[in-house]
């Protein structure tokens, strides 16, 4: 390109332009190589990451599926060597613990979430922070707390102690999820309630919560998925049991518990059961997570 400007050779702009272009061209090969190498490293990282993660899922599925028989789901634990054993007692235990924990946590958590959603002060900020920190606490410490709070005071291991510990894990998750869901309710909705002269508790109960319900359920499902998968809290609270037990005040078994205790046994039968239980656990957690996502997506579509 040429211009008709007469003093082209001393034009500072053209001089600078030449300098930039020569630097750009000179460095181009190096920059492109660096880019290619760096991006290659990223792809390599992806490839490396995929291997163990896929391996875990593959192993769980291929080793766990053979364990899934009708016996597996219907029968309770039997001693080593006896055929036809299953984990029905563990399934029952998980159901009981999950139900008790959820039943206690959801109302409590929703109430706390409601408070947080309606408050802006420093107390609310502090509680929010505490809840967030609690979601990451080592679960063994929660199990120990359950031991101290329930097992020591009642004198025995029980499903209740397990539910207490699992509840502590679930509570901050439900609280924050409820707060987020309630904050997501447009303020016009609650204003409409107030404009009709309703009390705050009525507005909350009849207007805000029903609208926030799908969001809350989304969070509760995730909390349940997290709660039923935890093992360490159970190790200190439920003691485990070979027998089918529906009474929460008694020691009982649970699915993650079975996986843990059977995995280090020298008997292949029991290890097989561990794989089957692990597969069941993974399946349950995946179903809850996927269900929660589908619900969240439906919610986004409805609100848009």
């Amino acid at each position, binding site marked *: 390109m*040429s*211009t008709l400007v007469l003093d082209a050779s001393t034009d500072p702009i053209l001089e600078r332009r030449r300098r930039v*272009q020569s630097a750009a061209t000179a460095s181009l090969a190096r920059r492109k190589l660096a880019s290619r190498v760096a991006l290659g490293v990223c792809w390599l990282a992806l490839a490396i990451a995929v291997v163990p993660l896929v391996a875990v899922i593959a192993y769980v599925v291929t080793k766990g599926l053979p364990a899934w028989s009708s016996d597996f789901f219907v029968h309770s634990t039997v001693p080593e060597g006896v055929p036809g054993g299953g984990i029905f007692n563990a399934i029952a235990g998980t159901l009981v613990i999950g139900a008790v924990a959820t039943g206690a946590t959801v109302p409590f958590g929703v109430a706390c979430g409601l408070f947080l959603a309606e408050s802006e002060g420093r107390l609310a900020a502090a509680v929010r922070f505490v809840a967030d920190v609690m979601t990451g606490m080592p679960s063994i410490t929660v199990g120990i707390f359950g031991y101290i709070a329930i097992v020591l005071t009642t004198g025995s291991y029980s499903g209740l102690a397990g539910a207490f510990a699992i509840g502590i894990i679930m509570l901050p998750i439900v609280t924050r999820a409820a707060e987020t869901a309630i904050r997501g309710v447009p303020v016009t909705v609650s204003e409409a309630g107030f404009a009709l002269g309703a009390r705050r508790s009525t507005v909350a109960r009849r207007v805000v919560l029903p609208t926030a319900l799908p969001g809350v359920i989304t969070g509760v499902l995730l909390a349940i998925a997290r709660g039923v998968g935890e093992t360490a809290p159970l190790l200190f609270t439920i003691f485990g049991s070979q027998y089918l037990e529906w009474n929460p005040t008694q020691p009982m078994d649970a699915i993650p518990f079975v996986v843990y205790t059977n995995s280090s046994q020298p008997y292949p039968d029991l290890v097989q059961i561990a794989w089957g239980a692990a597969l069941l656990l993974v399946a349950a957690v995946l179903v809850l997570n996927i269900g929660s996502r589908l619900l969240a997506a439906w919610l986004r579509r409805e609100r848009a």
Partner: protein
Amino acid sequence: MTIDPEVATGGGTVTADPRTTGAQSTDTVMRLEDVTVRFGGRPAVRDVSFDVRTDAITALIGPSGSGKTTLLRALNRMHDNTRSASVTGSVRLGETDVYASSTDATLVRSRVGMVFQRPNPFPTMSIYENAVAGLRFNGIRKKSLLDEAAESALVAAALWDSVRDRLKAHASTLSGGEQQRLCIARALAVEPEVLLMDEPTSALDPVATSRIEELVGELKSRVTIVIVTHNMQQAQRVSDDCAFLLMAADRCGELVEFGPTDVLFTHPRDTRTLDYVNGRFG
């Protein structure tokens, strides 16, 4: 290299533009021929041909959806990042075929700069770092060169006086208009041959807008400008040449007319152009 006026305006009368005589050249810095941009096979803008005059301001005007921004982004190969996009036709920057396989896109972008609709200074960088970011990307390290270029660019963007004492401050401390001028300075520091501007004032208040329009007029002597604007008055105030694009019935943009601005706005060849500039639609 001179332009055949017939080719530049597609035939028709051309009034002698006083700005093209004397020191102002009639050279072409960028030539488009039958440029078509497709997304996933469907054309968004097609068969655009015109020449961009050196050190002039060329405006792309037209109602929304007419493909102005799509066409602009084809000039510095920004569509390379969109996998479904394909650009056919020819874009020549001086002697270089912009879309040749032997042409490197990053080099093209160092010669054809871009200023975006919403100011986008790098938030983690200071004002100085923003100004020299382009130079650093292109391999220039020496502090004295960077300092000189930063000052020159910030002066050209009419920002130097207000930021000279706080070059280390974060870019986010600037107002919207100042941020946009920082983005202009950042683009200018690389000394491109062409500066593409995609509706640079549409996100700004009227005062900032008029200051940037003033700036654009002043920058003309330093760099060729191609500016997309949906504001006809702005195009009339600021540009030397105008390309009017319109969306056809099949939702693909087309070049209706190209020519010197005053011609386009006073006695255009096409009735659609006449309607648009008289505000009858768009």
